[in-house]
């Protein structure tokens, strides 16, 4: 049995100086884990993700992060990540090192890590200046055609945290809707924390094994945390809180407003359940309508 509270999971599996991944491409971003990392005051993290968004921005503002590895850093459709910009442009709260790829490069790094290959070839970056500013983007020659391809190194995080719709107590995790790069990020990691909306019986998992994205055998902790992805969304559970993403431009506009937010919504609450109570009816408005798929027959 791997179930534990978020506080326990972060305390046990995330250490100062770790290379950490909280993956999720728009869908299923685990804000609850990021907030707990801030509360526990983790330091000197190298955080990696295709799309560092609001939660990484908050972790940067809170001083948890020394280095960011990424491919697109912004508040999608709204604007820049202000805390990230303050760190890069002004060294506030302290300087932040950047290592940047494109999405395909990051996906390939996770895939190499998952497959325990030291690198992955890809056809990319020709004509781009990215390899000039990142010496980790190299080339490899095809032993059959002589063609030069780009190559990126494996990324093997110390810890990967993902959010999912459901899992059993051993961490067999089912996801539907957008899948992002979560499978590769988990298989690449030394430790995996899965945070779910719902804990289900193993029998439920076995009834539809094609939905299992992450097998329990690679999972170290299962945290049951309803609404743990808010303001991101969980297909079938709640919609994205688009208003919050817009408001975040104002929330993060300077260090004072950012600190006020952290004080109220992160340091000021002990856990996600309290955060949800505090949100109250705003959360109810996001609840998903029912749109069930059809069952398929697995019999033989």
């Amino acid at each position, binding site marked *: 049995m791997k179930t534990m509270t978020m506080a326990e999971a972060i305390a046990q599996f995330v250490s100062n100086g770790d290379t950490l991944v909280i993956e999720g491409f728009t869908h299923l971003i685990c804000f609850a884990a990021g907030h707990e990392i801030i509360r526990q005051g983790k330091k000197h993290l190298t955080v990696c993700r295709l799309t560092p968004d609001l939660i990484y921005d908050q972790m940067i503002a809170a001083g948890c992060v020394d280095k960011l590895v990424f*491919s697109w850093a912004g508040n999608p459709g709204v604007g*820049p990540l202000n805390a990230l*910009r303050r760190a890069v442009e002004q060294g506030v709260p302290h300087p932040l090192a950047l290592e940047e790829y494109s999405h395909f490069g990051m996906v390939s790094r996770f895939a190499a890590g998952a497959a325990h290959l030291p690198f992955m070839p890809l056809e*990319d970056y020709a004509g*781009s200046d990215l390899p000039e500013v990142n010496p980790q983007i190299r080339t490899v020659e095809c032993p059959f055609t002589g063609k030069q391809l780009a190559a990126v190194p494996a990324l093997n995080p110390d810890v990967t945290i993902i959010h999912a719709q459901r899992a059993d107590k051993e961490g067999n995790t089912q996801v539907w809707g*957008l899948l992002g790069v979560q*499978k590769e990020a988990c298989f690449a990691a030394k430790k995996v924390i899965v945070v779910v909306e719902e804990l289900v019986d193993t029998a439920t998992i076995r009834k539809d094994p094609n939905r299992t994205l992450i097998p329990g055998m690679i999972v170290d902790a299962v945290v049951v945390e309803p609404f743990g992805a808010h303001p991101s969304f969980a297909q079938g559970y709640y919609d*994205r809180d688009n208003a919050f993403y817009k408001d975040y431009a104002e929330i993060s506009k300077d260090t004072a407003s950012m600190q006020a937010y952290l004080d109220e919504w992160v340091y000021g609450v002990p856990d996600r359940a309290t955060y949800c109570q505090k949100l109250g009816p705003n959360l109810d408005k996001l609840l998903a309508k029912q749109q069930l798929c059809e069952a398929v027959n697995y019999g033989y």
Partner: protein
Amino acid sequence: MVTKTRCTLKELMIASASNELREGEVVFVGIGLPNVACNLAVRTHALNLTMIYESGAVGTRPERLPISIGDPALVTSSLSICSMFDVFNYYLQGGRIDVGFLGGAQVDRYGNINSTVIGDYEHPKVRLPGSGGACEIAVHAKRLMIVTPQSLRAFPEQVDFVTSPGFLQGNHSRQKLGIPGAGPQVVITDKGIYRPCPETQELMLVSIHPGIGLDEVRDTLGWAVRVASDCSVTPEPDEAVLQVLREKLGSF
């Protein structure tokens, strides 16, 4: 020269971009105006356009205009949801994408795009979001479309940083590097429409929007632009198209 137009310049950009999409094509949809243009095309002249979002939604028909590239409305109407590993490896690098659609903070004379930094990389004046999928879309899409508002700052002669390759230094330098896609075939701004010169690949003005003067075009471009001999005025969208845009997709 001020002409009364029925639509806004943003609407004209969207409609012009939509017009570039052909029925049955596979388009890799970016967020922002490209998203609106694609969602307009499937509601007007390209009913069988396959829209792919980098989040893994393939063949989607969202009932609401997706607010982000990973909107849940993309999922419930998709023909397939796949992982991002599949999107980049099997769809994009696999050569399955007809049209890529990008914006960018800077676009230069040869259609190179910068979405990384303004100024020096190590000490940037402005730190931008970075490539995302743009670099590989620019490399692999069979043809590329660029949609972005025009200003002197946004259209320098040479971008500060090449995030996504256009025609590089022109004169077939892109082709010589063996980059698979054909590069930017059209750039649509709020002033006009540009296409690459077949010999030099320098962007040429091929169409100017109604109400925009040639001086305004020249004052907002970082190089002395060539004007195609058959340069025309951009046609405004049909009433029916405008109606779909306004009623189904919003005000722009």
